[in-house]
C-alpha cells in the first residue's frame, strides 16, 4: 500500500464499535462479576465486602465438585463417540463412489441447527418413563418387560444427556472433518499409491495424520463449548441427586433461582478457571505429541 494514500487512522474508527461494545457489554460485566464475587449480595440490599469468603465456600462446596464431575462425565461420553462417528462418516462421504453425498451430509448436519432447548424437551419426552416412545418401542419388541425409568438412574440420565449432545453435534464435526479432508491434496494419495499403500493404510497413515490440525481444532472448541453445557441438560433436568447438573446449571440456579448473586459470581470464576485449565491441558497435550 502507498503510505501517502493510506489513511491509517481510519482503521481505529472502523474497529472502534467492536471495542466500545465489548467494553460495555463484555468487559465491564466480567470485572463487575469479579467484584461481586468478593461481596455478599442477595439482589435486594447493597453488596457488602466479604473478602474471599465466597471462594473459601466454593472450595468446600461438594455440590460444585459434583457439578464439575457431572460436566466432565457428560462431556467425555459425548465427545468420544461424537468424534469417532464424525471422522468415520467424513472419510466415507469423502469417497468418490458414494452417491447422495449431499443428502447424507444434510441429514447428519440437521440436528445441529435445532434449538438445544427444543431438543432437550424432545428427548425428555421420548425417554419419558411412562409415555416415552423409547420405552414403548422396547416393550413392544419385547426387549424389556417393564418400562425403564431412565431419569431415575444417574448413569442412564448422564448417558442420555451425553447422547443428545453427541447426536446434536457429530454432524457439525463431520462437516469440519470433510472440509479438512478436502484440503488434503490428491498428490499425497497418489504418492502413497505409488508406494503401494492399501486403502486401509492410506486412511491410517495418510489421512488421519493429515487431519491432526482439524482434530485439535474440534477438540479445543469442544472443550470450551462442552464444559459450558446448559440448554439441553437444563431441559432434561438435574437428574437423581443432581447427577446431571452441569457447572453452568449450578451457576444459574445459585444466581437466578436462589438469588445468591455474589456466590454465583464466585462460581462463574470457578468455572472460568476450570475451563481455562482444561483448554491449556488440551493444547499442551496436543503440542507435546506433535514434537
Amino acid at each position: 500500500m502507498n503510505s501517502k494514500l493510506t489513511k491509517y487512522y481510519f482503521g481505529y474508527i472502523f474497529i472502534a464499535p467492536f471495542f466500545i461494545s465489548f467494553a460495555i457489554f463484555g468487559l465491564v460485566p466480567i470485572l463487575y462479576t469479579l467484584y461481586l464475587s468478593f461481596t455478599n449480595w442477595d439482589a435486594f440490599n447493597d453488596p457488602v465486602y466479604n473478602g474471599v469468603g465466597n471462594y473459601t465456600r466454593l472450595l468446600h462446596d461438594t455440590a460444585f465438585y459434583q457439578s464439575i464431575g457431572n460436566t466432565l462425565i457428560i462431556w467425555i461420553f459425548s465427545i468420544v463417540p461424537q468424534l469417532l462417528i464424525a471422522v468415520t462418516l467424513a472419510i466415507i462421504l469423502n469417497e468418490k463412489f458414494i452417491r447422495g453425498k449431499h443428502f447424507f451430509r444434510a441429514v447428519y448436519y440437521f440436528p445441529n441447527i435445532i434449538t438445544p432447548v427444543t431438543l432437550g424437551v424432545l428427548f425428555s419426552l421420548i425417554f419419558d418413563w411412562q409415555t416415552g416412545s423409547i420405552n414403548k418401542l422396547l416393550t413392544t419388541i419385547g426387549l424389556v418387560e417393564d418400562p425403564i425409568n431412565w431419569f431415575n438412574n444417574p448413569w442412564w440420565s448422564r448417558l442420555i444427556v451425553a447422547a443428545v449432545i453427541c447426536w446434536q453435534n457429530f454432524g457439525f464435526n463431520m462437516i469440519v472433518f470433510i472440509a479438512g479432508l478436502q484440503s488434503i491434496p490428491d498428490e499425497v494419495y497418489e504418492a502413497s499409491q505409488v508406494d503401494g499403500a492399501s486403502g486401509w493404510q492410506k486412511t491410517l497413515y495418510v489421512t488421519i495424520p493429515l487431519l491432526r490440525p482439524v482434530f485439535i481444532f474440534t477438540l479445543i472448541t469442544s472443550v470450551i463449548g462442552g464444559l459450558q453445557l446448559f440448554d439441553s441438560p437444563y431441559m432434561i433436568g438435574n437428574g437423581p441427586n443432581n447427577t446431571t447438573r452441569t457447572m453452568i446449571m449450578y451457576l444459574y440456579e445459585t444466581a437466578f433461582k436462589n438469588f445468591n448473586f455474589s456466590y454465583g459470581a464466585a462460581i462463574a470464576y470457578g468455572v472460568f478457571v476450570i475451563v481455562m485449565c482444561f483448554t491449556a491441558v488440551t493444547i499442551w497435550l496436543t503440542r507435546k505429541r506433535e514434537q
Partner: protein
Amino acid sequence: MESSSTITNKAPEENRGKAGPLIARLLIYLFLIGSAAICLIPFYSMFITATHTNSSIARQLLLIPGDQLLNNYHRLIETVPIWRGFANTTLISVVSTALAVYFSALAGYGFSKYRFSLNNVLFAIVLGTMMIPGQLGIIGFYRLIDSFGWLNTYWPLILPSIHNAFGVFLMKQFADSSVPSEIIESGRIDGSGELYIFHRLVLPLMMPGLATLAIFTFIGKWNDFLNPLIILFDNELQTLPVMIAGVKSQFTADFGAQYVGIVISIIPILIVFSVMSKRIISSVAAGAVKG
C-alpha cells in the same frame, strides 16, 4: 466401526474381484442409511406423537399419524402465545444478525487494510476474547442491564451483537483474500471518503463472507436461551426457546401439547434448512476452515 474396516476391502478394487467391493459398498451404505435413520427418527416420532391424544400417547407405540393435531394445538395456544414468541425471536435474530454482520465487516476490513500502529495487538485481543467463556460475566451483565433500566427490553439481547470476535476474524480473512487494495486506492484517487469506499466498493466484494457470517449469527441468536431467560420476564416479550422451556413445565401431563410446541419450533428450521442446506453447510465448512 464396521465402516472403517469395510473401507479396507473397498480400496484395492482395481486389482481384485468384484464380490468383495460390492459387499463392502453395501455395508457402507447400510451404515450411512442407519445413521441417517437415527438422525431422522426422533423427528418422525415427534410429528406422529403430536397428532394423538394424551391417552393414546400414554398407551402405545405410535407409528402412524392421528387426527388430534388441532386439538393439541388449541390447548397449547390457549396458554402460550407461541406465534408471538416466534415473531419476537425473528425480530431479535434479524436485527442482531444485521448488526453483527455490518460491524464485523467494518472491523474486519479495518484490521485487514489499515496499517495503524496497534493493529496486531488489538487483533490479538479480539482473538483472545473468543477464549472467554460466554457465561463468565453473566451476573455482572444482569446487574449492569438492571442499572441501565433495560431489563425486560430487547436492547441487551441485540446491542452486544456489535462485538462478534469470530465475525471480525472471519471478515478479516475475507477482506485479506477478496478485497484488492487497488480498488481502495482507485476509490481514494476518485476522491471518495473512506466510509463511502467501504459501503460502495468493499461491502459488495465481501458479500459471500457476509452471507456466511449471517447464517452463523442467525442460528446462534435464534437458539439463544440463557440471555432471554434472565433478561425478559414478560410473557408477551419472551422468545421461542424460553417459551418452549415454559411449555415443558406448564404442560407437565399434557404430552400432546408439548409435542405440538416442539413441532412449531422445529418446522421453520426444517423449511429453511431444506431450501438452503447447501449454502448453510458450505458456510459452516468455510467458517471452520478459516477458524
